[in-house]
């Protein structure tokens, strides 16, 4: 008996070591851990990304200088990169400091209504006309879905707040760029947000479906929930109606593909392929996980993030609760199985020893 336990412990130890090496350790090496910072937006990760880039350029410069014959042209280009990165870092610092300062102001919803009507409804209205492939969202829920600092940043400078300014450095500009000239003063910004918050439904009225559809569903299909970027796909009686819907869907996809450079993926199985933690960190700041991606920061607050995750769990892993329940029953059954098997063995082997 003692010997068998010793052999068992050797087998278990080697198995666990192998498991630890190929699972937690290897995955830790392949995917460095990124913390979720609680859906507060202060630009820390944005600035850190530029810092990383600066460090990388510095290393490249040193490596080039250490060469026997440094390439002057290459050094010049690296120098330019360095200057651009430093400028970008400075701009981000100034931007997020501004956001912090504006956030301290108190907003007035009544005054905000005027700014909202003057500055936002030109695009954010029921007409749902696509702009460069993207349909400006209805803002009814935005006051409840998105975090206040993010909204301030978004009105101040959409590309900066979304951390996609790298996409707009030369010719193109963010399709919401014009807001900079529509809602201009700090007071206007906080008032507009106060207004958006005043018209938004209460937190408990926002279901996971609403949170996902408004925050993510304008770019991402979820076919396991019948969700398309133009809304839930109805059941059609007439095949022609269905085809008409599909064509509308394809057109919308083409629009977004043109704008993003790539069709945003269907998120049906993302809860299993990426996991809740990755998705949360990704919503906070896509760049920290996928540098250079055209996906903008979502800017959701902690409550909305939780609802988005709940929606994705419902889409990709709806049997989790059943799995836990059935699992417990099976475990209880196995305990009895082990006891009966042990007693049987004992009985049979009594005569054999």
């Amino acid at each position, binding site marked *: 008996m003692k010997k068998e336990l010793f052999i068992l412990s050797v087998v278990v130890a*080697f198995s666990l070591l192998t498991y630890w*090496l*190929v699972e937690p350790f290897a995955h830790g090496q392949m995917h460095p851990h990124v913390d979720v910072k609680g859906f507060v937006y202060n630009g820390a990760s944005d600035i850190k990304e530029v810092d990383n880039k600066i460090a990388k350029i510095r290393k490249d410069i040193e490596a080039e200088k250490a060469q026997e014959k440094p390439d002057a042209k290459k050094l010049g280009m690296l120098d330019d990169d360095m200057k651009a990165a430093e400028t970008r870092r400075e701009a981000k610092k100034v931007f997020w400091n501004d956001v912090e300062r504006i956030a301290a102001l108190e907003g007035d919803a009544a005054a905000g209504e005027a700014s909202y009507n003057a500055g936002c409804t030109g695009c954010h209205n029921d007409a749902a006309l696509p702009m460069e492939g993207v349909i400006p969202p209805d803002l009814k829920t935005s006051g409840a879905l998105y975090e206040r600092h993010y909204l301030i940043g978004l009105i101040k400078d959409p590309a900066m707040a979304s951390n996609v300014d790298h996409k707009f450095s030369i010719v193109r500009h963010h399709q919401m760029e014009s807001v900079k000239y529509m809602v201009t003063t700090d007071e206007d910004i906080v008032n507009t947000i106060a207004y958006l918050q005043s018209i938004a439904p209460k937190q408990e009225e926002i279901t996971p479906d609403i949170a996902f559809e408004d925050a993510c569903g304008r770019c991402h299909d979820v076919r396991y929930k019948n969700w398309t970027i133009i809304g839930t796909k109805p059941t059609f009686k007439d095949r022609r109606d269905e085809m008409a819907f599909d064509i509308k869907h394809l057109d919308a996809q083409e629009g977004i593909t043109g704008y993003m450079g790539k069709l945003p993926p269907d998120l049906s*199985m993302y809860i299993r392929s990426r996991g809740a933690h990755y998705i949360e960190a990704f919503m906070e700041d896509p760049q920290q996980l996928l540098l250079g991606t055209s996906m903008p920061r979502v800017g959701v607050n902690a409550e909305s993030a939780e609802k988005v995750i709940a929606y994705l769990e419902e889409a990709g892993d709806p049997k989790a609760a059943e799995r836990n329940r*059935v699992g417990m029953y099976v475990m209880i059954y196995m305990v009895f199985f*082990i006891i009966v*098997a042990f007693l049987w*063995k004992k009985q049979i*082997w009594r*005569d054999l020893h």
Partner: protein
Amino acid sequence: MAKFTKATGLKDWLNQRLAIEKVEKVMASEYWIPKNINFLWAMGMVLAITFGLLLISGIFLLMYYQPNVETAFDSVNYTIMQEVGFGWLWRHVHAVAASVVFLIIYIHMLTGIYYGSYKKGREMIWISGMLLFVTFSAEAFSGYMLPWGQMSYWAGMVITNLFSAGSLELNGVVEWIRGDYVPGQAFLNRFFMLHVLLLPLAIIALIGIHFAALRIPHVNNQDGEEIDFEVESKKYLDGDKAGSKVIRFANDFMSKDMFVVSVFLMFFFYLTFWNYGFAMDPVNFDPADGLVTPAHIYPEWYFLWSYEILRPFSKDLGLIAFAIAQVIFFLLPFLDRSDNVAPANRRGAFAIWFWLMVVDLIVLTAMGKLPPEGAFNTIGLVAALVFFALWIALPFITKSEKKL
């Protein structure tokens, strides 16, 4: 023509026609197993049960799976995992069993190596077991293609590419295997056929051969002792059960087997319900996309050691090394030049050989998964060289082994 009499009952009726009592004796109650064994001898039964789980869960999955590049992914992840009642359970059981079966196979193999259960008449047990290992590997690989996720597609791409044989550039062979230039409908269909028909048939046949191979040389025991089964079984049947060195397959050996199986199943179901990530790679929950290569492509954990033997060398050398690694274990009974059938710890240098091999396989496994960069690359190369050094050393160290 045998003489048939009026049967006294159903049992007698069957006995006259099928000799069921005789069969029961031969297969169970008078199939003699050494008594001096530990729980590692139950791994055969654990494997049989796990294969049973794979077969049953596979039959259920087969009712809903669609081998079509357009619908395969959704038929697995939506139809089976969400729409069909308990479809998720069968899929989790199937996926986890497919991975765990290799853990048990490796334990079973290493047990055989440690106790020297591959020589002196037991060579065919070892060889049929190795054939089972290879067939199980093919079965696992072909099954991995079926959900048609990113890892299915890219693993299929990488592994079929190996058949171009490096610098020989036999691209025609690769196309012939795939039925297309890249993995597509023809590819999925043929791997489906292999997975659900041809390879399971081969496995079942090989299991039969593997069991049959045990008959004449008998099961080995913890001390490698040569037992006179005639004498010992007579002792048992005469009533000296405690003094006999052998036990009945059923129920004596079976009762111990089932206890080990019960503990194994508890562990297995814990993995099935709560810790299945190692067997169901997250990357494979992304649908196959021939235009997006995953950042890290790696095989399932049980192929990692041989994958790592392929990786650190140049293209052609790596392929040769890989090919040798696939078959070298078949040669174990012939490369071991010692006559001793005994646990490794009594065989001097062989004990060191054995534990070095275990550690080396684990190092290769770990490095096969890690990205081939920096120190990992060097460690992988050293481990691959050690693997071959060990096989080259084996005949020499066993030849000079003292006779026990």
